[in-house]
């Protein structure tokens, strides 16, 4: 059981980064469906940087830059040129896939250097790792998992306790009102779309650098889409996003571990669980319709100042 939970936390980490990234993006009013693409861009550039320099810092910066680059493209098209966000996001996903296959082609099958692998190996946090049961599950992981915890907490504070966060939420909720009250809505949209893209890039890099430390094309295989669903699932709240990512990460590997857990259920049924859970939660949240759980009011609406 414990080894399953340890693995579940690791399996959920790419989802945590991507979900938080998309959450920030959506909260500022942009629906970027290019998560899958940005994750792949982050994965390929992160792996490339790590492989060529042997430096984990370069790998992480490269991944963030690539994800942010994809998001910048999205922001330019949708915020400045007011293109349709859904179409642009889908295009970004397809583009990211091609980008990763193209750049990754010469690296197929290559293993990342030992220096990078060592940085991402599991290391316990003194004292915390000795907590019975929870210690080994949450505090004997790799640095990216810890970064995920910190990021969740920081984002929750930023979004709900700071003025910048308030402005950002206002931009997503009612762009015209935010604009009228003096918020630079264009800057807010750009900044949060790009930041969200950087986080998606990190999520993809986790798959390529930690989960599978050898380059393979299309390492993401649909996890970006799950992240998009998880944002709705989490009703746009960072701490909830963290929790649902954990649940989904756990469910995604449950099928592989059932034998050792002594569960005798069809694996196909278990593999369906994450998706059944999504449907269930979407139905429940639609039914409850709580005010705080609704999507940002101006989500995916292009903003024309003249047409207020």
């Amino acid at each position: 059981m414990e080894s399953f939970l340890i693995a579940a936390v690791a399996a959920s980490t790419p989802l945590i980064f991507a979900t938080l990234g998309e959450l920030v993006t959506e909260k500022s009013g942009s629906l970027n469906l290019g998560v899958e693409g940005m994750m792949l861009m982050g994965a390929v550039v992160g792996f490339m940087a790590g492989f060529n320099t042997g430096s984990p810092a370069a790998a992480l910066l490269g991944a963030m830059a690539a994800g942010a680059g994809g998001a910048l493209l999205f922001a330019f098209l949708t915020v400045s040129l007011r293109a349709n966000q859904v179409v642009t996001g889908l295009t970004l996903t397809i583009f990211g896939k091609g980008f990763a296959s193209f750049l990754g082609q010469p690296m197929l099958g290559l293993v990342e250097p030992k220096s990078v692998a060592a940085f991402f190996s599991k290391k316990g946090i003194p004292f915390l790792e000795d907590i019975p049961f929870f210690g080994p599950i949450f505090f004997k992981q790799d640095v990216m998992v810890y970064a995920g915890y910190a990021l969740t907490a920081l984002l929750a504070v930023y979004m709900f306790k700071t003025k910048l966060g308030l402005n950002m939420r206002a931009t997503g909720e009612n762009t015209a009102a935010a604009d009228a009250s003096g918020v630079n809505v264009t800057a807010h949209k750009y900044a949060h779309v790009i930041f969200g893209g950087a986080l998606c890039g990190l999520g993809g890099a986790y798959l390529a650098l930690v989960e599978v430390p050898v380059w393979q094309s299309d390492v993401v295989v649909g996890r970006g889409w799950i992240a998009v669903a998880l944002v709705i699932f989490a009703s746009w709240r960072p701490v909830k996003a963290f929790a649902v990512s954990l649940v989904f990460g756990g469910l995604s590997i449950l099928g592989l571990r059932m034998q050792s857990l002594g569960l005798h259920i069809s694996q196909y049924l278990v593999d369906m669980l994450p998706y059944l859970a999504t449907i269930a939660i979407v139905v429940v949240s639609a039914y409850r319709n709580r005010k705080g759980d609704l999507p940002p009011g101006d989500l995916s609406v292009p903003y024309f100042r003249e047409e207020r």
Partner: protein
Amino acid sequence: MKKLLALALALAMALTVSACQNSPKSGAGSAEGADDALTVGFIYIGNANDGGYTQAHHNGAVAMEEYFEGKVKTLVMEEISDTDKQAIRSAADSLIDQGATVVVGTSFGFGDTLYEMAQSGDYDGVKFLHFSGNLMADNMGNYFGATEEPRYLTGIIAGLQTKTNKLGYVGAYPYTEVQIGINAFTLGAQSVNPDVEVNVVYINSWYDPAKESQAAEALLDQGCDVIAQHCDTTGPQLAAEKAGALAIGYNLDNPTAAPGAWLTAPIWRHEAFLIPTIEKIMAGSWTPESYYGTMKDGYMDIAKLSSLVSPEAQAAVEQVKEKMLAGEFHVFTGPIQDNKGNTVVQEGETLYRDGIWKTDYLVQGASSADI
């Protein structure tokens, strides 16, 4: 104006992507100029240097082209989805337009489309060869290999090298081809170590690198100390290396990813089918066949054993391999029971190709979470 610019940029983005894929290129490229050369077109599901399944096919294509020294030219189409009929069809058409008179499809999912083309009457000058299917037509044949033979040999090594008597096996799907491999591996391991058990985890995907690694980690956590695989990436081998365990690969002799864990792998030598078949096509004596290559045919093989394989295991493998090469050893010889206790092969009975391909069970000693 801005909208137009947005549209143009979005289009440009989409076009870059499609431009990156599906560009045909010639294989080894040594056959420039020879106008009377026979052109053989290959359709791959993956990338020619994917380090596994497709690379094994590509190596066979390159070896075949080199063998014919300019008399054969190869073309390849990479990363063609096996569920996208349109893509398969246009890949084949594009190869034929470039002069291919033999089209080889190397994934199961290409079969139906190639069969339709072969049957349509529009491609009578073209011969179709399909890997892993069973469809035949006047101008279409298929080929596959007796993977059970090298699987059995790798089982012998795993059975002798394990200390925990628990072997792990990462499978793609619980279906016949995979189950045959698991059964042969298990029988091989049991032939030298009756106490051994094989734990199987299916990832239910042909392609998900992260899941392959996670599945191997799950098996390692259960105490398995040798990990075998029927999936395409080196992820399971790396997971084994990280945990200080041993690993058996698949498809290719490729110890470079995880040299600290690599023992060996069941591998394909596709040129052993391609060379004689192309020779027959050139001579005009080819007739459609359903080829099933064995170790004796040189089609299946076991990769060079690494230095981690004990001398005892090496000797045991050598002994059985000799019998296989002489055609005297058959993996599925009774009595064999499945893991529910039913006798599936009677004493004195031996399964050959047709019987083997009816497998829908795991043998005793192998278990998966499925019921």
